[in-house]
């Protein structure tokens, strides 16, 4: 595959891995967080941990939109479909997220709720057009990557007077979550960040500059291919060794400092910041999520239907918060792989294949267990 195979070349990977091993100081540790679930997935899928020297440890961050969605928000979606009889249009990843009362959207669908899997917001609009007598709610989730398409959908609905369409908005912000991780009162065990790929194409590299300047943490933005990751890790090692903290951009083929101005303008026009939003595993973070501006209130499912948000506490045995901050490894959680598995996830990190625990369970658990 053109433009993909080039970034998965085994020979080049071994060369990069050797360069990293040469430069990494075996007497210290390098704890790097890849914020994004896409990176977690790539690291696991290609077994990159095997190519890195022992001094480097990758910490899987919270950048998995499905994982950080709190139970109470899925509860709202299920109530919309079951109690208010709406057609709930959703990206496929959310279907298996456990909610209250042993429900998931998949199970709600089996019980008769009209839940439909879609690939784009355009599909949700098409469902609304095809069912003028039904209310259609799009379960809008994701970081800055998926927010612009939601903004476009809302604008199209407004222009086309699509009165039966609304969204349950759960769009969240990457920099806010990084701040929350770095501001943890117990301190952080992170020496640098691999910055998101797709998110950064939208927001640019500038929003990460405070992490380098104020927190003295190096950030290297990387694409989702394995060679992108290795190159970013190489640059992070170099910054740490040189005592520097800067934002560097490995993903120059797609990311600029300013980002995508048109996408940002669309988001700005449709959304405003929420005062606070609850993240699964990280708790409530101020100004970390978006809601529709008042002029788009008719398209806001939370204002249109009586589905108040009821927070549901995470299971006490679950160590997701500590895992997301890099304080614990997945296999150090008491319930990892026993009570908590991908078939029966208890904590947020086990929910999607991009979550830290699910990735370790699915792709890497042979490393933890005795051979």
């Amino acid at each position: 595959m053109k433009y993909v195979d080039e970034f998965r070349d085994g020979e080049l990977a071994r060369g990069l891995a050797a360069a990293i091993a040469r430069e990494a100081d075996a007497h210290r540790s390098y704890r790097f967080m890849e914020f994004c679930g896409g990176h977690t997935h790539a690291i696991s899928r290609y077994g990159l941990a095997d190519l890195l020297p022992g001094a480097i440890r990758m910490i899987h961050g919270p950048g998995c939109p499905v994982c950080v969605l709190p139970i109470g928000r899925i509860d709202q979606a299920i109530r919309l479909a079951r109690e208010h009889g709406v057609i709930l249009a959703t990206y496929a990843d959310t279907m298996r997220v456990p909610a209250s009362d042993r429900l998931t959207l998949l199970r709600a669908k089996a019980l008769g709720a009209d839940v439909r899997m879609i690939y784009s917001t355009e599909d949700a609009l098409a469902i609304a057009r095809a069912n003028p007598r039904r209310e259609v709610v799009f379960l809008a989730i994701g970081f800055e990557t998926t927010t612009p398409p939601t903004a476009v959908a809302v604008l199209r609905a407004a222009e086309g007077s699509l009165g039966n369409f609304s969204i349950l908005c759960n769009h969240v912000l990457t920099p806010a979550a990084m701040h929350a991780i770095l501001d943890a009162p117990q301190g952080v065990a992170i020496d640098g960040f691999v910055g998101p790929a797709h998110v950064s194409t939208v927001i640019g590299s500038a929003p990460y500059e405070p992490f380098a300047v104020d927190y003295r943490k190096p950030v290297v933005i990387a694409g989702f291919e394995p060679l992108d990751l290795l190159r970013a890790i190489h640059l992070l090692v170099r910054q740490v060794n040189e005592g520097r903290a800067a934002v560097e951009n490995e993903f120059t083929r797609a990311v600029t400092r300013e980002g995508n101005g048109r996408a940002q303008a669309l988001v700005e026009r449709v959304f405003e910041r929420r005062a606070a939003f609850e993240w699964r595993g990280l708790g409530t973070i101020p100004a970390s999520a978006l809601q529709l501006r008042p002029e788009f209130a008719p398209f806001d499912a939370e204002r249109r239907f009586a589905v108040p948000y009821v927070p549901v506490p995470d299971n006490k045995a679950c160590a997701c918060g500590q895992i997301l901050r890099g304080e614990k490894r997945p296999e150090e959680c008491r319930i990892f792989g026993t009570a908590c598995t991908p078939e029966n996830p208890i904590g947020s990190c086990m929910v999607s294949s991009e979550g830290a625990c699910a990735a370790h369970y699915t792709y890497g658990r042979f490393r933890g267990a005795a051979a």
Partner: protein
Amino acid sequence: MSAPYARPLDLKHGLVDLTHGSGGRAMAQLIREVFARALANDYLAQGDDGARLGHAAGRLVVATDAHVVSPLFFPGGDIGCLSVHGTINDVAVMGARPLYLAASFVLEEGFPLADLARIAASMGRASREAGVPVVTGDTKVVERGKADGVFITTTGIGELRDGVDCAGANARPGDAVLLSGPIGEHGMAIMACRENLAFDAPIVSDTAALHGLTDALLGAAPGMHAMRDATRGGIGAALNEIAQQSGVGIEIDENAIPVRAPVEAACELLGLDPLYVANEGRLLAICPPALAEAALHALRAHPLGAGAALIGRVIEDPRRFVQMRTRLGGRRIVDWLHGDQLPRIC
């Protein structure tokens, strides 16, 4: 036989209705003008409730498979030929020669007779090409909304070859793992139809009857330990099943697994892993290392195995993990799927 019906079925514009399943004249006419015509053979011509078969000397293998594919017609095939191939393959990978098929149809009220005739014709063609007749069948009609067009369940009977002991529990450490060709083609052909994905080179289902291939394989390597057609869940699921049944681990090499470029691109686009995508004409074969070369040669000499490859080996592992050496040189588990493989968001 004189036609006892005033008018022939309207195979152009007619629809299935509830009378076609009621046991009356309409049902008899449907069976005669659609199924008996398409699947014609001496057994079916008897018109009895069952088929009287010849006596088999050896051990028998029986397998059954329900087919509920959507869409019913896809590039490279349709539910008709799929329902013949799927069951023949289940019998064949047990090391048996498929002899007979039985077919049972659940039809949804309102289903176009033209489509049904097309499906029956495709079944007939597949069955004749394979040399495995459909000797008995059944038809039911359910109300509109209670089924998705047509469901077809087929059952196959085959005769086990003497001296062959092919089973999922027979894999032993050291065995070679062979794959008969590129993976993921059926699943992605279906997915591309469902999602209206248009590719420059359309992906065509690999649906095919594999008993000729297994015949050649067992001829060259009669001491074959296990074979499995990698249908739902792809080779990922099939390898895990074998590891589980045999109490062994399996190690595969990503670089050795053939995937055609359009399938790889489509998987990439939808965030799917080709290891878990369905095949309908590919098999995995597990044999003692001494037989690996002969087996691979036999596979490659057959048109359906031209793209065959040695992809890994069986190892000792009480945890029964399937592991893969990635194309970058790292290692990872190829785990059981957790539910269906769903596309990722970003």
